[in-house]
């Protein structure tokens, strides 16, 4: 930690970090989304932000960041891909994915915390894939099935179209998260790798030299 003289736990900084990640996911919504034929769920870069929120901030703050994002959207800010916002989102076929955002960020963060610090790439990818793809798809598919009035099987099939893109995003998110944790250590409070004889050159605790 570079900020030893600061108060050890800074609740105000939690708030601003959460806000900033809600802002990052909003910024990713500016990238034009591609709507594929079907029930009207777009391919969007925002899932990358969801994974990042969990992988960088951990479970609780990652969850809060996405919850904040969702509340801002529902309050009417046009932050979803394509400039959508407002309560109308709850009536759209994407509602399940939308509700899944905080849950997915939590899952990614929870796994990253289990895997401990320093952040390592392969476990990181595992976390973003499990949390940011599979956990997200469960509410997402249910939402599509309900809103588009089609069966769960058909809805699940429609989600397959997202899989290649989302797997790529998961890898990119983990790569970015690794860079961020290296440049800004101390974000995840997970336990340090115990074995101090670990041969990994990345085991130096402080800023990379």
């Amino acid at each position: 930690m570079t900020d030893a003289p600061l108060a050890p736990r800074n609740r105000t900084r939690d708030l601003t970090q959460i806000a900033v990640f809600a802002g990052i996911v909003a910024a990713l919504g500016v990238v034009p989304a591609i709507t594929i034929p079907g029930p009207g769920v777009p391919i969007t870069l925002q899932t990358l932000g969801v994974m990042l929120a969990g992988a960088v901030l951990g479970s609780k703050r990652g969850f809060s960041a996405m919850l904040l994002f969702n509340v801002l959207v529902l309050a009417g800010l046009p932050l979803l891909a394509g400039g959508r916002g407002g309560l109308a989102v709850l009536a759209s076929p994407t509602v399940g994915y939308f509700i899944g955002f905080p849950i997915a960020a939590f899952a990614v963060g929870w796994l990253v915390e289990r895997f401990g610090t320093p952040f390592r790439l392969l476990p990181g990818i595992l976390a973003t894939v499990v949390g940011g793809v599979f956990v997200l798809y469960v509410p997402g598919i249910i939402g599509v099935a309900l809103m588009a009035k089609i069966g769960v099987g058909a809805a699940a099939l429609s989600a397959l179209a997202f899989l290649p893109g989302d797997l790529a995003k998961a890898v990119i998110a983990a790569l970015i998260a690794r860079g961020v944790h290296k440049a800004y250590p101390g974000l995840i409070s997970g336990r340090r790798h115990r074995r101090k004889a670990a041969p990994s050159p990345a085991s130096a605790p402080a800023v990379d030299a």
Partner: protein
Amino acid sequence: MADRSSPLAVYVPGASVVHRLPAGAKLLALVAAGAAVLAIASPLAAGIAVATALLGFALARLSLRYAWRGVRPTWIFLIGIFAFQWWSADLSRAVGVVGSIVALLLAATLVSLTTRTSDMIDAIVWLLRPLRRVGVDPDRIALQLALGVRAVPLIAELAETARQAQYARGRRASPRAFAVPLVVRALRRADAMSDALRARGLDD
């Protein structure tokens, strides 16, 4: 630099009836409208809903340009939904569903345009007061919401300057060279904002 005409510069000052309505009432009306819209499917009902929302714009003395701006970003979606509904049900249902979504978009836009963010946040906090008993701190939530609203243009600006800085150095963005410093800078920004908050006595 961020596009400064982004729809986030939401509040349009005014003294109309709509402006003066309590924010809490407007929010509750919006929630009710959202629920009602789920039930609407007929073109007639949707037409009435759209007309009602437009009447609200007239009462607020806001030109139709503002109304259009609320719907514009969504048009491609609306077309998608329209086509899907037409294909899976029929034309009348497509008109009804899309019309009801447009009505709701207009209503949400109207509330945003006539309500100061701080009033909106106060209203949300007021609505959350019952949760105080289960350990929710409404003031902290208010602060969190305000910070979220602030963070959106802030990050957009950071992203734009980062893009320009790379451009100025003659290199294209690679994920490592763009995203990592951007997120780190966003975190530094969060540090600076939390310092500023604490300096203004807004910590716990």
